[in-house]
């Protein structure tokens, strides 16, 4: 599927979702479990991307003590948790990755 078709369809679906109840008011009732489940969607999807990203290098799983991304990621989690600051999290995480790679001789 071409990139443009993906963007167009993803955009149409997002627009349709935003329009749904505005147009169909009163005709659909959202079940309670569905409403509660939506709260977990961002955390679940993003986490399902984060850990595999940290745990892979050049598209190969590397769950070992020699993977610097795991340390940098753990440090970033700590900074995000304590400061809630997006830019600081990114800066500390990037700096940590470069330091772990360079100083510790990790590749």
């Amino acid at each position, binding site marked *: 599927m071409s990139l443009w078709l993906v963007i167009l369809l993803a955009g149409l679906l997002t627009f349709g979702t935003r329009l749904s109840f*505005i147009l169909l008011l009163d005709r659909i009732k959202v079940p309670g479990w569905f409403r509660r*489940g939506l709260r977990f969607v961002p955390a679940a999807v993003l986490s399902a991307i984060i850990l595999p990203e940290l745990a892979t290098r050049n598209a190969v799983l590397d769950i070992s003590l020699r993977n610097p991304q795991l340390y940098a990621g753990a440090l970033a989690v700590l900074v995000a948790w304590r400061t809630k600051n997006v830019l600081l999290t990114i800066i500390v995480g990037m700096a940590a990755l470069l330091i772990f790679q360079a100083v510790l001789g990790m590749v």
Partner: protein
Amino acid sequence: MTTRKQEFWNGVRDEAPILLGVAPFGLIFGALAVNAHITVPAAQAMSSIIFAGSSQFISAQMMGTGASGLVIILVVFVVNLRHALYSASVAPHVRHLAPGWKFLLAYLLTDEAYAVTITHYNQEGDPANKHWYFLGAGLTLWTVWQVSTATGIFIGAQLPQDWPLGFVLPLTFIALVVPALKDKASVAAAVTAALVGVLTFGFPFKIGLLAAAFIGILTGLLVEGSPK
């Protein structure tokens, strides 16, 4: 009665503080998208056609890792399903409007525009012109998102290709997710999804991402239990 013009500019004014949090994400998105070899028009089109921050980051990441188009579309759909709740929430307030207005406001119904607008709808005051407030808040966010994306694309194109910018993406996601983990159920959802994501990493077309997300959501629901 508050005039249309007053409502519109009140919406712009109330949206403004949120922009400080939004603009950096637009910048980062633009820079990452071109770094991930998405063309300049396609990167800008993602901000104007999809126009939903976290799902744009996710699709840019997936496009860079060879996910199938269908899986990307499904993931974007699931990530943006929460907007159906916003839609249901504003629906009673906009039901008197002409279809053109409904389509326009639905397009502008982002997390950030919703947060400001629904607060305004729930306040006292003549509701007759409140859709102008919605329009002011929504258009302000839209403009800043487009401009910050374009700026990010410009900056990203100047950066050397060998910079390890790819690592900014998981870091951005960490910055988004971690502060939102406020209770046991959401932590359980995140940790489970992360682990299943690693276990299913080798699945074709990144379908493992969908599986991990659904198992994470189910875990969150189970840990939370039924409401009393």
